[in-house]
């Protein structure tokens, strides 16, 4: 049962593999309609089957090295995230504070206070990176992103209802509403986008997402207009930020990310099978419906958790897998860990950037990411020939 492992694929199945492997950056979204573009992949697969075991293991070594490099980078960015701020802290002080904190030392206080924010960033990053990758694989759509698919809008509306109607004021309280809202909207958008011939094409999904987002936004506004106190709370949530996240909130939500991230990380083989298209996946012995619902559920839990910690954050789920693929190729067993490391690096770096460029205040990470991700999406749309309207 090794459905889609590239090296072991025989030439006959490799044709199918190339036909449907969608998320290669050079491959158009309607990949199943233009198999010729993925010729390099086919060539690579053919080389793999030719018995070049050393090449495969060298490749694996290179990928492992890449992962290690990313981990080091993540560590560096994490230290930067603790060091940079309204008050700069040196590396020596950070290490000192982590080893034995002195209660009276104000530098140590600063370090300790920045740690929850760091952990929030790590959790949100990992969650969004994984959920973006899964959504792109499951929808076979290079544009899938929790934000673009309207999930954020659903979570936002639910949070507003929780604050305004339920009188819930703590983030711990409205987490569950964010969850429910995100889940409901994700199902709705996908159901709408997938109705009709051709399944969930990029344009159908993007429009369904944007339209549902608009609907949710209007509903949210309707509630906010009548309730200024809720609006005052909501406007800081809705921008997407890591500032002032309390340790209890992070501690409460960390288990969700952990529980969902582990199976998500291991779902690479399943995603590879699903990426081949329903028929092929079924032929390879997958129970397509169950498998898709399972991984999509993981993705929604991850992105709902992230949204309830940091508020709606756009584009990072879109960016991370796209940045991973030039290194990893289309194999999801590698894309997942890469995206899980790249996303927190991006998130923490954007957070630091937002703190640096808007001194003495800060630009929220959601805004920074929108301005990094928006141009990226535009470039992606301009470069690829996607299914015509």
């Amino acid at each position, binding site marked *: 049962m090794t459905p889609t492992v590239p090296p072991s694929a025989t030439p006959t199945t490799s044709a199918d593999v190339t036909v449907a492997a969608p998320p290669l950056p050079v491959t158009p979204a309607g990949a199943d309609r233009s198999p010729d573009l993925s010729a390099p992949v086919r060539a690579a697969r053919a080389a793999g089957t030719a018995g070049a075991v050393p090449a495969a293991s060298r490749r694996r070594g290179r990928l492992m090295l890449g992962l290690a490099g990313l981990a080091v980078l993540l560590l560096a960015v994490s230290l930067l995230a603790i060091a940079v701020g309204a008050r700069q802290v040196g590396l020596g002080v950070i290490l000192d504070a982590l080893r034995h904190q002195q209660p009276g030392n104000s530098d140590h206080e600063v370090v300790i206070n920045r740690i929850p924010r760091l952990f929030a960033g790590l959790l949100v990053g990992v969650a969004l990176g994984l959920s973006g990758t899964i959504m792109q694989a499951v929808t076979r759509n290079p544009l899938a992103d929790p934000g673009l698919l309207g999930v954020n809008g659903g979570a936002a509306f639910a949070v507003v209802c929780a604050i305004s109607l339920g009188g819930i004021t703590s983030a711990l309280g409205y987490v569950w509403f964010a969850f429910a809202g995100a889940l409901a909207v994700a199902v709705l958008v996908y159901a709408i986008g997938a*109705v*009709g011939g051709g399944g969930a094409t990029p344009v159908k999904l993007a429009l369904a997402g944007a*339209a549902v987002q608009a*609907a949710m936004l209007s*509903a949210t506004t*309707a509630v906010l207009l009548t309730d200024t106190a809720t609006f005052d709370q909501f406007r800081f949530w809705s921008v997407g930020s890591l500032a002032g996240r309390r340790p209890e909130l992070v501690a409460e939500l960390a288990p969700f990310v952990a529980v969902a991230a582990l199976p998500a990380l291991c779902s690479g083989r399943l995603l590879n099978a699903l990426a081949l298209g329903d028929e092929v996946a079924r032929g390879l012995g997958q129970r397509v419906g169950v498998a898709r619902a399972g991984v999509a559920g993981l993705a929604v839990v991850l992105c709902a958790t992230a949204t309830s910690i940091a508020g709606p954050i756009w584009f990072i789920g879109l960016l991370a897998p796209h940045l991973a693929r030039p290194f990893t190729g289309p194999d999801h067993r590698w894309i997942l860990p890469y995206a899980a490391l790249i996303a927190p690096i991006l998130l923490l770096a954007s957070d630091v950037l937002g703190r640096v460029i808007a001194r003495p205040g800060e630009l929220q990470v959601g805004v920074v990411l929108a301005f990094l991700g928006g141009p990226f999406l535009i470039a992606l749309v301009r470069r690829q020939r996607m*299914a*015509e*309207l």
Partner: protein
Amino acid sequence: MSTSSMSTSAATVRPGPAPASGDMSAAARARSAAELDAAARAAVVRARRVRDARQVGVILTLAALCFCVLCVSLSLGEVKIPVLDVVRTLIGADEGGDGYIVTSIRLPRALTGVLAGAAFGMSGAIFQALLRNPLASPDVIGITDGASAAAVIAIVGFGLGGYPVSVVAFVGALVTATIMYLLAWRRGVTGYRLVLIGIAVGAMLSSVISYVMTISKVYEARQALGWLTGSLNAKSWDTVRPLGLALAVLVPLVLLSGRRLAVLRAGDDVARALGVTVERSRLALLLLGVALTAVATAAVGPVAFVAFTSGPIARRLVVDGEAAILPAALVGALVMTTSDLIGQHAIPSIDFPVGVVTAIIGAPYLLWLLAATNRTGRGG
């Protein structure tokens, strides 16, 4: 919706005689071809007559409905004025004391609603026809976001209000649309690219709005939120005059270019074959659509879903589908005035802005429409 198929079939039937089978004599072939030709012509003429009659009927009905809602909304309020008196005042026959309330207080508000609704409806119909997607209205693809971001910055950042905000919003919409068009340009502009780039630009702009909201005082932010919802409150003749003037210029242009729109709906290749300069016509129509959106948004704020819903409703009503611009305008006006009527009077103690009502009506319709268009395979 048989829209594009109808216009293409009409186009293909008209020019040439129908092909006849090979083994007939020349005379018989010519006669049967002539008969077929005549039959086809007759069918087309008949279909056109039915269509035109239906179109006129729909337009008259919608206009009458609009007028009725208008009169009702003029008669309701703190002071109840009988509908007959309202009508008498409108045609200038009433000199009574209630005339002042109607003409100076309620009429500007109602007229603003009619005009802005018509503008939204027309621009939605233009965009949906041009981009050949029933969901691609200016509020979904980010043009209204440009107006909103500019207006929010003006309100919060510079403390502006009233007329200057409208000007800023107008400019914001135009600039955003220009940027989107340029970004989508790559040896021509295709609908899907414009849609996706519009969504990306819209996402960036809405993050700007969120950010500006967080750095402002809650009072100013609340004011900005009010503008973002869109409202007809406190509209006077000073709003109606520029709005009416702009529409007086734009509407004739739009109606003149309606034929080109119908051809463009059939697809670029068909349009080119029929002798339409595709890229230039598309640019001109996009400009008109953007101008209409910008004018209406500047006047009343980005009222949700009016542009979005008017086109599909209108096309459904006229059955045939030219882009149905005039019916879409009337539907827009009707939706706007009815929503405002509901918002003002449905719950006596609360005065909901019109944008809230259109959203509550529009959102479920949108969801239904999304599912329906995807089912018939026209969602993209």
